[in-house]
């Protein structure tokens, strides 16, 4: 009897340790893009089970009703996004398999978000460790792709072979439009934008080095995790330099510079009123802008030539808006014929994504990740994503005030988020391979799960049901 009593606490600790290791492995494999588009759902399922495991098996993870409500309120945009982007016409069009995948993806988004929040609470490892595992996963992917590309094109190929093409099987392939990389379980020719996106995101973390303290003052875990961050960031940077991908270097450089700048910004822990107002006004303007643009898209405006009104032309006639208009026009309108008159009218199904069978160049040429959500998830998912981004801005602010000083791993987490959003907002590629490719889901992807996990990692509530100071002090990274 005594023996049983003694064993029980040990078993609880083991669950925490086992779960932590599983989560680190899941994030390593997610960063690595294990299985590619076809098999990644297996990792998603393991992630979902790990989340459930945290709630069921870890005894000290108990939350009050108020804490749960705070979590729920602050996560509403993400939950709405998860549901609408997964159960959309676009994803459900593949029948039963589509329903299963939508279910896995919706749970995956919420599950990875919760994993980000919960990891540091379940102990024994801190947030640094899981971020290091994630960075190492991306680094391994980037390293393999870099070696394969060097073997195929040699160093600095984007500059050396500018304007050049090679032939294979009678087809001309412009060299600067491809990058050889690991995709699932095979090494294939990817588009440059997609293939190098991981290197850009990885190189962005190098700004963490500005926050390092002397090695002798670091603990063992810190030394290991910082070493992993440094090696990973350098691998990302090397991949960009070897390819001579200037766009990627500029984006990574801008994020590294941002990391340096915030070191010198002194902001109060509690956001002053003016800051909140600025964010609110900015958010409202962005939402109104896209709402008006949506109405214009439904009304049939697709290019600057359609804007006869000077005000409309000045505000809405730009290349980014033109992309959005074309997508809204294709997703949320249908042609109605009455008699001899044919006109475009609102298709309510557009709220739930693109329902047609074949996509046009409005989708294949789209490089804005957020706009791909319009046809993949629908207008509701798109606006939920915008609100989620506004929440993320506030989360980042709160996250940087979590400790006395900004820690290196915090820079890593935020840089990965910024790298993902910034790069994919301008250079996201829905067509990923150079040969016989089709539209790939930007949402049902490993990198998007990394982004969602990181949003959970930096989670710091904006709307609080009730202050729970004792709980916050009790657990590291605790904001619930």
């Amino acid at each position, binding site marked *: 009897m005594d023996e049983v009593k003694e064993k029980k606490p040990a078993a609880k600790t083991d669950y925490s340790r086992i779960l932590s290791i599983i989560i680190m492995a899941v994030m390593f494999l997610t960063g690595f893009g294990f299985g590619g588009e076809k098999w990644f759902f297996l990792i998603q399922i393991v992630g979902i089970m790990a989340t459930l495991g945290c709630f069921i098996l870890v005894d000290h993870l108990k939350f009050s009703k108020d804490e749960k409500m705070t979590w729920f309120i602050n996560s509403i945009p993400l939950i709405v996004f998860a549901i609408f982007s997964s159960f959309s016409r676009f994803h459900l069009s593949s029948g039963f398999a589509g329903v299963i995948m939508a279910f896995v993806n919706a749970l995956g988004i919420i599950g990875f978000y919760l994993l980000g929040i919960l990891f540091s609470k379940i102990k024994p490892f801190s947030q640094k460790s899981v971020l290091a595992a994630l960075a190492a996963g991306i680094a391994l992917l980037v390293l393999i792709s870099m070696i394969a590309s060097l073997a195929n094109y040699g160093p600095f190929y984007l500059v050396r*072979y500018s304007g050049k093409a090679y032939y294979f099987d009678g087809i001309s392939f412009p060299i600067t439009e491809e990058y050889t990389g690991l995709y699932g379980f095979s090494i294939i020719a990817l588009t440059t934008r997609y293939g190098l996106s991981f290197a850009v995101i990885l190189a962005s973390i190098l700004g963490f080095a500005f926050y390092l303290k002397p090695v002798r003052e670091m603990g063992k875990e810190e030394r290991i995790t910082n070493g992993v961050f440094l090696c990973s960031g350098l691998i990302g940077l090397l991949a960009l330099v070897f390819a001579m991908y200037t766009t990627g270097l500029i984006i990574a450089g801008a994020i590294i510079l941002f990391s340096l700048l915030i070191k010198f910004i002194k902001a109060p822990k509690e956001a002053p009123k003016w800051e909140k107002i600025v964010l609110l006004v900015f958010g409202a303007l962005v939402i109104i802008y896209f709402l008006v643009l949506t109405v214009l898209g439904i009304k049939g405006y697709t290019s600057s030539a359609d804007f006869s009104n000077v005000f409309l032309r000045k505000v809405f006639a730009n290349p980014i808006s033109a992309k959005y208009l074309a997508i809204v026009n294709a997703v949320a309108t249908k042609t109605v014929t009455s008699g001899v008159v044919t006109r475009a009218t609102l298709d309510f199904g557009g709220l739930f994504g693109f329902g047609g069978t074949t996509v046009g160049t409005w989708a294949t040429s789209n490089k804005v990740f957020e706009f791909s959500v319009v046809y993949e998830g629908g207008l509701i998912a798109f606006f939920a994503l915008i609100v989620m981004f506004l929440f993320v801005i506030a989360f980042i602010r709160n996250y940087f005030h979590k400790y006395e000083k900004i820690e290196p791993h915090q820079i890593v987490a935020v840089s990965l988020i910024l790298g993902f959003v910034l790069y994919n907002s301008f250079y996201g590629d829905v067509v990923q391979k150079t040969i016989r490719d089709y539209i790939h889901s930007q949402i049902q992807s490993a990198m998007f799960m990394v982004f969602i996990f990181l949003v959970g990692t930096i989670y710091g509530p904006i709307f609080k049901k009730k202050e729970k100071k004792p709980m916050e002090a009790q657990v590291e990274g605790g904001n619930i």
Partner: protein
Amino acid sequence: MKKNKLFIGAILSLTMLASCKTSNTYANNAYNTPLFETNYFLDCHDFAKEAGIAKENITLSPDDYFGQDEYQNEHTSGEGFSIVKERYPEMFQYYDKSSKKTVTLDTRNDWTNANEGTEVGIGEYFGRTKCLGTADSSFKSDGVLSKLYNGQLRCWGFYAQARVQIDENGFETKMPKTMQSGKYFLACIRGGSNATKIIDGREVSDGRFCTVDLIVTLYKQNAVYEVTMPSVSFFTDNHGFNVSAVGFAFDKIPSLDPKGITGYGVKFANLIDPSNPTIETDATKKSDKYFGLMLYEVMFPDATWGD
């Protein structure tokens, strides 16, 4: 110091890695510009001269080679394979190992660029089933000439991406593999030019039949054969679908054992263009009207290949 050397060594070895995809590069728009005269493939090796050996000239009689005359072309909707199918029906047979059945291959439909990365056409279309790229994958990586080895026998809307345009000097090239055994030579050709005609005040393509003596050079390590097929007729400037299958069986040339062939060339002479008797066939000479032979495919059906 030792670590530094290792690091530098590692970097150097990375930078010196063989760049397999970039060993044979071209300008992005090579052979694919709006100017007809800039699209000629001019790679004029002369194997006989380079090897210092005399050519053996062989002129085939009309019964020894196959092509399409005007009548055949007009009455087969431009399919271009009627004579070769009549003479060598076995060339169009394919034994499907999976179904253990012999099937007759389709010569009207083709594999195209859009099917890259798939098995489309193998065991179904003549071109993709018996093309050099399918026979040995090393032909797929043979630069711009891989357009001639992929089994796309016609234009199918791919225009200059589907063909190689040659002048009277043509080209000679070494192949990535050596022929171990061979039965036939076959090329899919048509004529092309920048000559037009005026109808109702509008400048339009001048669809017509032209004739050339088609010369195929076959290169072996110690011998060069120049096989001439006189008066080969084909459509010119009349849609990229209308190709003619032209070639011969090796058994018609007793002096030529195909084993050991490592290179070939195609050129032409004695153009007869009824609409443009003075049209220029040499791309290096200045003119306002040029003629080019459009090669869509070069095949050695049922040949085997080795190193």
